[in-house]
């Protein structure tokens, strides 16, 4: 298979999804601010959507279902981003910091 024909293979998209997922996991465990972790979680969601669309294009009998599901993932991701950022703003107002190490009130 030629390198210019990569976009017609299912494995390309699955590998790209796995790489994006890994980068999201890396960002989630290394970032020390809440906003950085939120950015990394967006990468994980994008990886899941790419997997849905790849299987939708290459294996599913009805290609509309995966597209509709990806649209729902986008709506839920937008809701998640709005809620997460408002919690971040509320945390900043109370603690004057969004560093994860400062949020230790519940630590035993």
């Amino acid at each position, binding site marked *: 298979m030629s*390198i*210019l*024909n*990569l976009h017609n293979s*299912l*494995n390309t998209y*699955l590998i*790209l*999804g*796995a*790489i994006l*997922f*890994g*980068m*999201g*996991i*890396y*960002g989630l*465990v*290394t*970032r*020390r*601010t809440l*906003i*950085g972790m*939120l*950015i990394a979680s*967006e*990468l994980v969601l*994008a990886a899941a959507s790419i997997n849905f*669309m790849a299987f*939708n*294009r*290459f*294996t599913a*009998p009805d*290609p*509309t*279902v995966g*597209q509709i599901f*990806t649209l*729902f993932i*986008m709506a*839920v*991701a*937008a*809701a998640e*981003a*709005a*809620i997460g*950022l*408002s919690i971040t*703003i*509320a945390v*900043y107002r*109370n603690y004057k*910091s*969004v*560093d*994860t190490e400062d949020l230790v009130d519940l630590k035993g």
Partner: protein
Amino acid sequence: MNPTDASGVLGFFMADGLAGYADAAAGIVFLVMLAATIIGGIIACNAERLVRAVAGLALCFIGVAAMYYFLNSPFVAMMQMLIYIGAVCITIAFAIMLASPEDNKKQGPAGALSGPLGLVTAGLVTFGMIGLAVNTSFNVLPKENMGSIKLMGIKLLTTYSMVFELVSIVLLIAILGSLVIARHGRSK
């Protein structure tokens, strides 16, 4: 040049050659967008300043939208540009400006998993999933339709109308709730 040569050149461009060039151009665009996705993701999870991480996230989402385009879904690609780049990235940029996380940044390692151990964790997850994806043989079913935008609209308002309404309510409640949470504690 005699006429047969000219028709031969013309035939080369008309019949097979032009389509071949278009395929090659599509392949090159795909490779550029693949690189944009991966480089944007690396910037998004590694950049020191969060504003650069958001810019990397936007680059990554442009690449992901191109992936959707190559997967026969121009509508979802357009929605990706609108929702993720136009709304989510801008919202995160506003949150960075409001919370200014760069002002009192702590130095040093962030925790036990932040150094090489985090890289090893992410690498194990990535290569495990790549191994699973490459070594599994997937059952390819014959297509029932081409997945056009018109069919998507019909399905959204018939088969998936309940989910459609539920998602719109979830989005409405989430945005109202985020307004309430962010406004709580203000004097006016």
